[in-house]
């Protein structure tokens, strides 16, 4: 069964460093998402992406964050200058071969980001 994959599974970085989290969505999906979950808290929406542009973003997704689909398969989240509070599990999701509102979002296994 097709699945969303994410690399790396765990990333440790120093405060102020740039990180790129990578995702390979399910191949025929059209909508892509990033969510994050700070330890012990809710899963929070960051950004959605469709047709090579951001379709929605949350307040969390400030200028430090960017997303890109550099080729036909990868979907990346870049954090330009990491802060301690960026430590979280980051989930990629994809959906959408039809009605995006009614489609299931399939999540990847997550990347645990630790900022020291």
């Amino acid at each position, binding site marked *: 069964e097709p699945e969303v994959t994410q690399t790396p599974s765990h990333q440790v970085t120093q405060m102020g460093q740039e990180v790129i989290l990578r995702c390979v969505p399910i191949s025929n999906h059209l*909508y892509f*998402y990033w*969510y994050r979950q700070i330890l012990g*808290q*809710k*899963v*929070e*929406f960051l950004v*959605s992406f469709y047709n090579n542009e951001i*379709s*929605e973003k*949350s307040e969390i997704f400030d200028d430090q964050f960017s997303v890109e689909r550099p080729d036909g398969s990868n979907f990346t989240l870049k954090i330009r200058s990491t802060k301690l509070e960026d430590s979280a*599990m980051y*989930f990629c*999701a994809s*959906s*959408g071969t039809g009605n*995006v*509102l*009614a*489609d*299931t*979002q*399939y*999540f*990847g*296994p*997550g990347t*645990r980001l630790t900022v020291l």
Partner: protein
Amino acid sequence: SQQGEEDPQALSIQEGENATMNCSYKTSINNLQWYRQNSGRGLVHLILIRSNEREKHSGRLRVTLDTSKKSSSLLITASRAADTASYFCATVGSSGYSTLTFGKGTMLLVSP
């Protein structure tokens, strides 16, 4: 913003018993979805119920939706130790965006 809020926060039962988790939200929705998360792992989609549906079944799972009360319930029948996980409801609003808004989750522990 709409929020799914589950209760109870934690539930501990014996294998073979049924587990019921509830979810409430605040604004109108297009659909409501339930996800499972094993400790420290990814989110696994369980079931999606649309706003015009009242009940849905999938294997040992039964989901109900009451849009007048803005609430949903997830019933797991004949629970197994492998069902031990956190369960989250997540809503997609009717505003035209497909963003999922998650609740805090119910941690279910099923003892053998």
